[in-house]
Structure formats: C-alpha cells, structure tokens
C-alpha cells in the first residue's frame, strides 16, 4: 500500500481511486471553485452595502432626532435673546456671540502660524532631521485628546500666565489645537502648485521668497482657505478644551479677558444639569446647521480648487 502524501493544501481534491499524482483535481471541482468565488463576491458586496447604509442610517437618526425636537425651538427670539435663569429660559444669544468671538480669535491666531509653518516645511527645508521632527510633532499634536489641551490651557494660560478664564485663554488653546489641521491642508495646497511656476519665476531672476510670496502662495490660497474652514469646523464644536479655558459665563464678552460660553459648552451644561430640554435641542440644532453649512462650503471650495488645477 502506497502512502498518500498530504499536500497540505486546503481544498485540493484527489482523483478518485487512483494514486495518479498528475490528476489532483476532479473535473467538477473547478466549477465549484468558481461558484464559491462568485458567492463570496456577492456576499461581500451585500455586507459593504449594508455597512454604508448603516452609517447613513445612524447619521440620519441623529440628525432627524435632534432637528425634530430642535427646529421647533428655533426662532428669531431664541437666537437673539440672552439666556435667563441660567439657561432655563430665554435664548442663546450670548453663546452665539461667545462661539463667534472665540472661533474668530483662534483662527486669527492660528492661520498665520500655520501658513508660515507650511511654507517653511514645503519650500525651505525639505529633508533632514529637523523636518522629520517637526512633522512628527505636528502629527502627534493632531492626535492629542481635546481635554488634554484643556488641561494644558488651564494650567498655562489661565493659571500660570494669569489670563484667567477668558476669551484669550480659550483662543490661544484652540489655536494650538487647530494648528495641525491647517498646516496639513496648507502643505498639500502648496505642494500642489506646479513646479513650472517656480521655475518660471526663478528663471526671471526672482529670489525664493519672492517666488513664494508672489506666485506660490497666491496660487495655493484656495487650498489654504479650505484648511482654515476645516479649522473653523473643528473649533466650533470644541467643548472640553473651551470649558476649562474660556469658562462658562453667560455674560457677553466685551474684552479679551472676559470669560464666555460657547454653544457647545452651553449644550453640555444645560443638558447635564437638566435645565431645559428646549435649550438643549435648540442649541444642538443651531450647531448642527452651522457645521453642515461649513462642510457644504468647504466641499464646494475644494471642488473648485481641484478643478482649477486640472485645467493646467
């Protein structure tokens, strides 16, 4: 009796009866294999389709629930009146002002620093240890949880530098948070500027800085603006870092050192302390609508930015 060698291959069928090693497969097994592959393909397609649908469903569920309860609350009075009785009644005007002031300050501070860093990383220093360290730092910064930014902001800006809970402390903290967002996008925008522009400029006797300032940056502006808008999106929804640095005062801030409350913080407080279901849903709705608008605008801008470079 001859030993049958196990080939160790799953699914390999042996010819019936014979030890003839040249016919390892039955004639019909090829067909079975093809059928199984097709079945797998169909199953995969269904599962992926289901995953996509589930995602959409979850999003729709959240949005419809919030908007369902909240849209009825929104009216001009809600938007323009100040909160009364710690938010149990009245509108959310001071939180809208707070959100606007804080986000504006963060963007105003973050944009020049980010664009500068992006220009430096893409145009001036391309290789070497320093660049790798900076890049690594930027990536790490992007991943730090926002509550830690809040802690840092509290210890450094609020306490050590003595700014207290204020627009300034919050703005500086948010600035640090959104730096990586804008840097990444700005970098991509600058890299996307065709080299032929740089060559053309240098060949006319321009210095590197002249080339960057007069040709590269202007051409990269659409992409940079996209990055800024993404930064706005991140800052607007930020809660943990803001509560620890800008405070939660319901008074409208009139100076850099005044504390303030943003909509997301207001939503947190009003919900967690159970002060007003209406205010909760109303604030959430305003926030969602704002973020939708921002994403919509970003999408349109990114589309135009991509298209304008395809024509080259």
């Amino acid at each position, binding site marked *: 009796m001859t030993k049958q060698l196990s080939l160790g291959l799953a699914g390999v069928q042996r010819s019936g009866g014979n030890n003839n090693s040249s016919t390892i497969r039955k004639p019909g097994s090829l067909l079975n294999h093809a059928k199984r592959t097709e079945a797998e393909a169909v199953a995969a397609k269904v599962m992926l389709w289901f995953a996509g649908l589930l995602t959409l469903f979850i999003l729709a569920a959240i949005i419809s629930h919030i908007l369902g309860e909240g849209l009825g609350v929104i009216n001009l009075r809600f938007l323009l009146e100040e909160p009364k009785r710690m938010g149990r009644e009245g509108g959310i005007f001071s939180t809208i002002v707070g959100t606007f002031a804080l986000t504006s300050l963060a963007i105003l501070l973050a944009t020049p620093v980010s664009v500068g860093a992006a220009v430096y990383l893409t145009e001036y220093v391309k290789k070497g240890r320093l660049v790798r360290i900076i890049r690594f730092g930027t990536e790490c910064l992007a991943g730090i949880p926002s509550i830690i930014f809040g802690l840092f902001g509290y210890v450094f800006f609020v306490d050590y530098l003595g700014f207290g809970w204020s627009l300034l402390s919050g703005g500086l903290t948010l600035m640090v948070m959104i730096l990586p967002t804008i840097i990444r996008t700005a970098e991509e925008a600058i890299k996307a500027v065709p080299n032929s522009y740089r*060559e053309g400029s*240098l060949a006319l006797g321009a210095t590197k800085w002249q080339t960057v300032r007069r040709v590269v940056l202007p051409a990269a502006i659409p992409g940079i603006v996209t990055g800024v808008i993404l930064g706005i999106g991140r800052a607007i929804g930020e809660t943990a870092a803001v509560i620890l640095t800008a405070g939660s005062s319901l008074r409208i801030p009139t100076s850099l050192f005044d504390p303030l409350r943003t909509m997301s913080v207001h939503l947190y407080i009003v919900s967690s302390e159970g002060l007003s279901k209406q205010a909760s849903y109303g604030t959430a709705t305003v926030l969602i609508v704002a973020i939708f608008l921002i994403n919509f605008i970003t999408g349109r801008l990114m589309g135009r930015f991509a298209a304008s470079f395809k024509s080259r």
Partner: protein
Amino acid sequence: MDERKKKFETIDLVLYYGNFQALKRISLPIIEKSITALIGPSGCGKSTFLRTLNRMNDLIEGVRITGDVLLDGKSIYAPKVDVVALRKQVGMVFQRPNPFPMSVFDNIAYGPRIHGINNRKELNEIVEKSIRAAALWDEVKDLLMKPALSLSGGQQQRLCIARVLAVEPDVILMDEPCSALDPISTAKIEDLMLELKNNYTIITVTHNMQQAARVSEQTAFFLSGELIEYGRTDLIFTNPADKRTEDYITGRFG
C-alpha cells in the same frame, strides 16, 4: 575660426547627477547675437547643458559641477556670483509654456516688479514694448487684463518670451520652445527668433533638425553627454566631420 565675440564659453564642463555623469568635459563657445542650436538624441545632455548657463541646475539636489562657464569672460560659478542677477541677464523659455495664473499684464510686469520697478507708467511702457518685441501685441492688446491661461498655446509661449524680454536680458535660452506647439505657432516663433537674434544671444535646444537648420548659425551636436561636433550650421548639415553626426542628421538613429 570665428572672429565674432564669444558671449559664453564653457571650459571642460563636467556635471554629475548623483553618480550619473550627464556632461563629459564640454568645451563650447557661444557666439553673441546669433542663434546656436543644440541638437542630439533624447538624454544626450543638451538640456542639462543649457541649464548650466543660467545655473538652473542649482535647484536640483545632488548636482555636482566641475570645470567652468564664462559669461563675457567671467566665471558664473565663482563663489560670490549673484545668481539672481545672472538669471536676469540670462533668460529662459521652457518647453511647455508656463505663464503664471495671473493676467497677461501681470505676467509681463512680474519681472520688472521683482527687480524694483513699481511705477505704473513705466510698467505700462515696458509691458507694451516687450509684447511688441514678441510679435504678440496685435493679438493681446485688448486682452491685457485677461488671465494669461486663457490664451492659446502658441500665444502663451510668445507671452513667456515677452516675459523674459521684459527684464532686458542679453541672452535667451530656449529649451525646445516649439515642441508643445502646432506648426503655425512654431513658424511664428521661429520668425521671432530670427528677429530677436539681432539684439540677443539665443541658444536653443531642439529635437527638430529642420528647425535647427532653418534658424541657427551655429550648431552643436551632443551624444551621451559628450560634445561630438560644433560648427557653422550649414557646414554641419552638409558636410559633417564626424560619422556619428552624419548618422544622427540623416536619421539613422535618434
């Protein structure tokens, strides 16, 4: 051989891209106020050579150069040489037209502006003068504020030539200026080159041998990084000294 003045002279010019030797001891004179054509098969080093004349190769990492390049008798690779001033004096037109994403006017005014001219009246004069010199004025005089990218390919290339002329160079380097253009635009640019050579020294890299024969007075034949032959264009094309030159010109390779 030639009593006319040499604008450029390279002396045993060697260039390495990393470990690859792209130019092997090139010693070539460039006669002023005439057109010199650089011909040869792809990869033979003619564009690399062209770019050594305005030090555009400096922009590439890992480039090593030995030997020398003299402009008006002075080395352009000496330690204290102002590369920015060099590139103002030695302009370059590229293979694919590369106007900036700005108006026609701003494109031409770009050069003068970076060199300090900001007076609107002066700029207007320079822009008009340069566009006329590039034989483009009639076509764009009403389009000065339109985006340069809205012009046709041939117009864009003449715009790039005008842009170079606006900084008042002595030399114009042209790296296959017509290879991305249609025959009619090519003819216009060749006519332009013949006009310009009265006032500028022109060096042009070209794949098109008929073009080289049509416009240039001197021709240099490159092969694998070496200068095989250099001489008067009519002599090179009718009676080349080197067999390799003859083979290339008659189309046996390349």
